[in-house]
């Protein structure tokens, strides 16, 4: 059972300061032009308020855009190599919505399902998530179709819900959450039974993930269904890069004549090169097949194999898509498509 506290909005600054003073990196949504991203902050002055969704997800906190893994030195015939320890400062992620908070479960499933991951796990272990309930959504949100909700607590260590212009209801959910309270105990007052439901956004479900997962295998051979949806897809990697759960990566080397690094970086199943064999054969040669893979992977393969959905319904892919591919809409349509 979670503990409920009240946090005044005006004390956020002090909270950020105390967390920083305690050695934490605080990541929070920062506005830059029309874009919003999670960036390191030391004062709440820059922290964006009143947004539906950040442009990029918070996954970079545990799975950065690029991450050096190995440093090597070339010397004649020989090579010496040393591992680069992952950057894993204690991190407090402030302000992700419940969809983003839920995404860490999917990432964890991918990175630990069979073996551990020396770069992901240390970051996750030191990550504290202070989630922020949604009081508004838009046409792209579909968290309620994939098992989430605007006030869902999963994945958050503390979930804040803005009760009014001045105060948050703070649900202290885990030991990591309690550790945050312990750093600034005076900022958290006892709550007396305030309900958060009345302020939460209303997101109507569009489909049920379970039904989709059941239907998809039969839809796989229906080429025309996938083609119809993906004709306008231009095959960029935008959807995967803004997605909080997309975790496919590439491993690449960079070097000069003396040495270099091996790193991993984001990749996308939307690119033709993703699966291209050295022989020239490409198992997924056209965009409709790549779109099918994207949907199947998130809504069928991952649930079946890893027991987690590959989608949290944040809607970023659809908001950012240059050609308005709308995942929520298309998956909803698949639920109705004839198998």
């Amino acid at each position, binding site marked *: 059972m979670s503990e409920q506290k009240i946090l005044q909005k005006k004390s956020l600054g002090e909270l950020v300061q105390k967390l920083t003073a305690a050695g934490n990196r605080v990541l929070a949504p920062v506005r830059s032009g029309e874009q919003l991203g999670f960036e390191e902050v030391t004062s709440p002055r820059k922290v964006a308020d009143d947004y539906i969704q950040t442009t990029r997800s918070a996954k970079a906190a545990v799975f950065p855009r*690029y991450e050096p893994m190995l440093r090597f030195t070339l010397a004649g015939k020989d090579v010496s190599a040393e591992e680069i320890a992952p950057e894993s400062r204690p991190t407090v992620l402030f302000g992700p919505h419940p969809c983003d908070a839920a995404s860490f479960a999917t990432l964890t499933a991918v990175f630990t399902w069979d073996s551990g991951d020396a770069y992901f796990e240390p970051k996750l272990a030191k990550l504290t998530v202070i989630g922020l309930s949604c009081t508004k959504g838009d046409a792209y949100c579909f968290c309620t179709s994939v098992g989430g909700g605007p006030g869902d607590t999963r994945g958050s260590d503390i979930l804040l819900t803005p009760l009014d212009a001045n105060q948050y209801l703070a649900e202290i959910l885990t030991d990591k959450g309690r550790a945050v309270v312990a750093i600034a105990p005076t900022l958290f007052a006892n709550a007396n039974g305030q309900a958060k439901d009345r302020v939460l956004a209303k997101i109507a479900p569009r489909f049920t993930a379970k039904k989709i997962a059941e239907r998809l295998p039969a839809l796989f051979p229906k080429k025309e269904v996938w083609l119809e949806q*993906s*004709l*306008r897809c231009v095959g*960029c990697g*935008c959807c995967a*890069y803004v997605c909080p759960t997309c975790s496919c990566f590439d491993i690449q080397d960079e070097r000069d004549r003396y040495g270099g690094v091996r790193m991993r970086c984001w990749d996308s199943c939307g690119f033709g090169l993703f699966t291209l064999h050295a022989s020239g054969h490409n198992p997924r040669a056209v965009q409709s097949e790549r779109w099918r893979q994207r949907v199947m992977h998130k809504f069928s393969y991952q649930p079946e194999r890893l027991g987690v959905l590959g989608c949290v319904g944040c809607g970023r892919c659809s908001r950012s898509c*240059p050609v308005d591919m709308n995942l929520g809409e298309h998956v909803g349509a698949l639920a109705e498509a004839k198998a």
Partner: protein
Amino acid sequence: MEALRTKARELLESGAVKVVIGYGAGSDPQRVRALFARTADQVGQLVWDHRCRQNLAAYLIKPDVKALGRMAIVARPATLRTIMQYAAENQLANDSIVLLAVTDDGQIAELTSFAAIEEHLAALPRGLTPEQQQELDKIEKMSLDERWAFWSAEVGRCIKCYACRAACPLCYCHRCITDVNQPQWIPIASDPLGNLEWNVVRAMHLAGRCVDCGSCADACPEGIRIDLLNRLLGREALTQFGAEPGYSPRKEYALSSFKPDDKEEFIR
């Protein structure tokens, strides 16, 4: 809009084309999305207004779309210029597609031959709008350090999703320089140097070819104003070399031609 729908229906019913690529309703009232009308009963979904900005010529090179058969494309002036540029670069045969240009009075010009497109474009205004010019001026008035700070922040947000490349009809190389890895010219990772290199390369490879449709910047999820780089180079290519890409099917590419007396003042 009615004229457009009527024309599209005609083309589909007569079998002149297999698909009409136009714009239809999008996810929200601010957006439209590409619509692929293959039957006459789909043409009622076609829309035409100020939101119709995506350069649909980009679909000419997508295998899934090409497989549909002969196509008609709803075209704004920049789309027509793209087709002219394709012609100049020998990427498209004359009369192979139908362009449906909507004129100011709402009528439809059905253009198939390069000559017809050229003639149609000749009657349209050219050059940068005052707003476009102001955007360039604003950056040029900054100090050197301010410009560097501005662009470092802009391209620093790049996540290398290549939406700009995918949305650009003139980025049609089968193997983009970023896909070539022997050597790896441009780093795969979106690190600061890789981001800078990619955005510079993209701009340079379109210099003297770009028709300023703006699709690259519209496509960028991070809102990076990469179109300004193209616009600057377009303006320079015009003033320095008289290059006006996309107005003639015969024009030589500014950077693959030269004049012995090209003017410059910086070479010692």
